[in-house]
């Protein structure tokens, strides 16, 4: 009995330390943006084009609307469970042991996504820059960078993401440069792909937007009222939508419908074509900056996985779990990252789980919460 008491005390202290760190709304903005924008940028136009043809951008807007609706539901849950992050709510609302089980599933999902990010990143690097470099070197570098980032507290993460966001200016400028020779005729006629294809494209769009689960974990740390936070959440989605639309438009109008199907990384092919008097091959610089965005996405997933595991075991040795998770992601990435096909299959499966973990489970959480609201809030006030 005493032991249990001790444990719960330690746990509450752990959570209190985490919940007491405050991050500003600007940092919140960049934490979300940097998490959501990542590996997807380079191949997004290709994926959209494959299903929705030149109407891919409509799918993207649709996907973003769905995500925004979902985030509104998130917000309803978060507003009602103040001072609680995702893993705490899971245990509170689902009950202790089911909650722990779901937490574990979440951790597996997060680390699986992290491994997927590692695979996709090494694939691009091996294809575009370092053809002969072994995969394990590239992945190890990224995992170490992620671990180093995490080894501070969440504040360091927030500061670093804000700092790295400055680099996005380079990405945006180089894309805007691409719009210069746009052929808007390539996206006409609008709606030619048909509603069915556009809806299929929405699926691709949603997958590229995944990562917003992070909001469920860091929301309680953000300074400000719930309304202000909601505003920021919407701003992030609009910013990301704007950025992705820029990516899609610049490539769609540069290549045209048929050409794009030949280039799996349209953004890079587009940048490769430009020549400046000072440097050539803008794509190499784009990749270099893009790596930073990928690292931040990977780090977030690693962080969430480690955080969940730590919460599940009620431990205060955060770094141990982080290192463990990093090792798992590294092995996953190296075992599944060997063949093009294998990556594709793995990616498909993991991405589909995204709907479960980012969509279904949080909504379920909200529904159960609303159904048992009185009981849950009642026990809270005791």
């Amino acid at each position, binding site marked *: 009995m005493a032991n249990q008491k001790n444990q719960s005390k330690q746990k509450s202290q752990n959570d209190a330390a985490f919940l007491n760190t405050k991050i500003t709304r600007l940092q919140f903005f960049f934490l979300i943006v940097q998490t959501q924008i990542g590996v997807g940028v380079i191949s997004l136009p290709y994926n959209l084009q494959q299903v929705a043809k030149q109407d891919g951008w409509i799918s993207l807007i649709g996907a973003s609307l769905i995500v925004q609706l979902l985030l509104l539901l998130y917000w309803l849950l978060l507003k009602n469970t103040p001072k609680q992050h995702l893993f705490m709510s899971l245990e509170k609302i689902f009950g202790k042991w089911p909650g722990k089980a779901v937490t574990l599933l979440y951790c597996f999902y997060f680390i699986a996504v992290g491994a997927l990010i590692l695979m996709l990143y090494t694939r691009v690097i091996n294809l575009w820059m370092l053809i002969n470099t072994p995969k394990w070197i590239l992945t190890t570098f990224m995992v170490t960078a992620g671990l180093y980032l995490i080894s501070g507290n969440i504040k360091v993460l927030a500061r*670093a993401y804000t700092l790295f966001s400055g680099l996005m200016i380079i990405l945006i400028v180089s894309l805007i440069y691409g719009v210069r020779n746009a052929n808007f005729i390539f996206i006409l006629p609008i709606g030619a792909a048909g509603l069915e294809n556009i809806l299929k494209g929405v699926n691709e769009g949603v997958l590229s937007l995944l990562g917003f689960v992070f909001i469920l974990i860091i929301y309680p740390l953000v300074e400000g009222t719930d309304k202000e936070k909601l505003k920021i959440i919407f701003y992030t989605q609009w910013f990301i939508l704007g950025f992705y639309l820029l990516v899609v438009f610049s490539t769609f109008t540069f290549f045209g419908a048929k050409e794009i199907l030949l280039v799996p990384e349209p953004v890079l092919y587009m940048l490769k074509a430009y020549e400046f008097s000072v440097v050539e091959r803008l794509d190499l610089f784009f990749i270099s*900056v893009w790596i*930073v965005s990928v690292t931040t996405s990977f780090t977030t997933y690693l962080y969430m996985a480690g955080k969940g595991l730590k919460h599940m075991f009620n431990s205060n040795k955060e770094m141990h779990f982080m290192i463990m998770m990093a090792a798992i992601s590294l092995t996953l990435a190296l075992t599944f990252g060997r063949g093009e096909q294998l990556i594709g299959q793995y990616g498909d499966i993991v991405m589909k789980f995204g709907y479960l973990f980012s969509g279904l489970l949080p909504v379920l959480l909200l529904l159960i919460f609303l159904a048992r609201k009185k009981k849950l809030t009642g026990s809270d006030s005791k």
Partner: protein
Amino acid sequence: MRYRRRKSEQEKLMEEQPGSEADVKEPAQPSYSQLSRNIEYLTKALKHSNDLKVRVLNDGNAALLYFETLADQEKVQEKIFTQMEFGKWDSIAELPNGKHTEDLEEALKVLLRGHALYIEDGNKKLSYFSVTTEINRSVEEPENEKVVRGSHEGFVENLMININLLRKRLEHRDLTIKFFRVGKKTNTNIAIAYMDGITNPELVEEVEKRIKSVTADTILSPGFMEEFIEDNPGSPFPQVLSTERPDRVIANVMSGKIALIAEGSPTVLILPSTFFMFYQSPDDYNSRWFSGTFIRIIRLMSFLIAIGLPAMYIAIIGFHFEVIPDDLVPPVKSAIDQIAYPPFVEAFIMVVIIELIREAGMRLPQPVGQTIGIVGGLVIGDAVIRAGLISNLMVIVVALTAIASFVVPSHELSTTLRMLTFPLIILASTLGFIGIVFGIMFILIHLVKLESFGNPYFAPVSPLRLQDLKDTFVRIPLFKLDNRPKDANPIKEQSMGESREWKRNGKSKKSKQTKKSK
């Protein structure tokens, strides 16, 4: 209250026994009434040191003790014997400029401080007089922090003169000085200076706590203190700014930071420091703000060149040749084709050569140092290219890097930058651009994580403080810098009110007049 504090500064220094907790444990030895026992105790405690002079007075009934090497003979004459010749006082012990103690341990300490100790037979009271010699360098411009315009004063090795230089510049009652003694054996006198009412009291407390926790025998210079009190000794970046310029110290003290001054060294530490403080120079504020901004941007560019240029060059030559525009390819190719070594080895050799030349030239007398520079820079540089060991492009790159690293106004940071090129060179030669990206990412993450006395080191860029950026990459006109930077969490943020109303007033008057006339 405040007036008294200022007046008694000198005495405070003499009597303050800081680290009081440690001092409490030190034995206090009450003095004896017999002269011989007193002298015996003292000479024994001082290990019969030969420079301790014992002058027997009054036919052996009294004695004056002092260290010949510490005391000034003329002062002894002037302060003690000349006074006695006036005949107003019967005994040296009654002289008004003497102080008294009945503790022999205390007497030992004042002897070591260069005072003269007067002991009478049959009197327990020991009197001592301050007759310390002061051998001081004159106040000169510091060699390593020269400015074109503005003050040319620099700190010297004497703590009192240094504090005097500060007080002269900041005549305000809020300037607070606190003395400490550190180093169990060296007993070094150090002081912190801050503005009461601007500096965050928590910061002061933290600094005091850290200073008091130092238990080393030897504290020779602020460099020792720096290592003892800084947050993160494992970092290559200096977390405490050191300067020899009083104006720079005052500027920082006025923005809520604490200055740490030590006896015996002209270097003053500023706590806490941020990365961008190392890129500021008093010159920025002495020149017009346009040129100040321009120079500051050049300096920050030098940071990128210093850590990134050789790595970038190696990455391009080794991995990404396609980045070079077509017209540049033939000259670059012809330059590197004849070289036997891979670019990594080339760069490594060249960087080491430059470090050798720098280190050799630094400690030698000026004429010899210049010769080394010429022999090293011109002769070796030229010969190395002709011998085909190193490409001429590499020489350009490494020389530029070395120059860029010297642009930083701070010596420590410049060394750090030159050290950081090595890991980046290695990364660039193994992974090309990817290596550089990861290398720089690691450096940035490290900078973001660093804290100096609880304040983020990479502020105001991370965490982003838009207000403070006005005086970071650019320097906007001084009258617009109306808030103190938040680097040190000052409790009073506003640093000025309206300063240039006359301009606005003129306008508003005009408009009023025109209104009236209408």
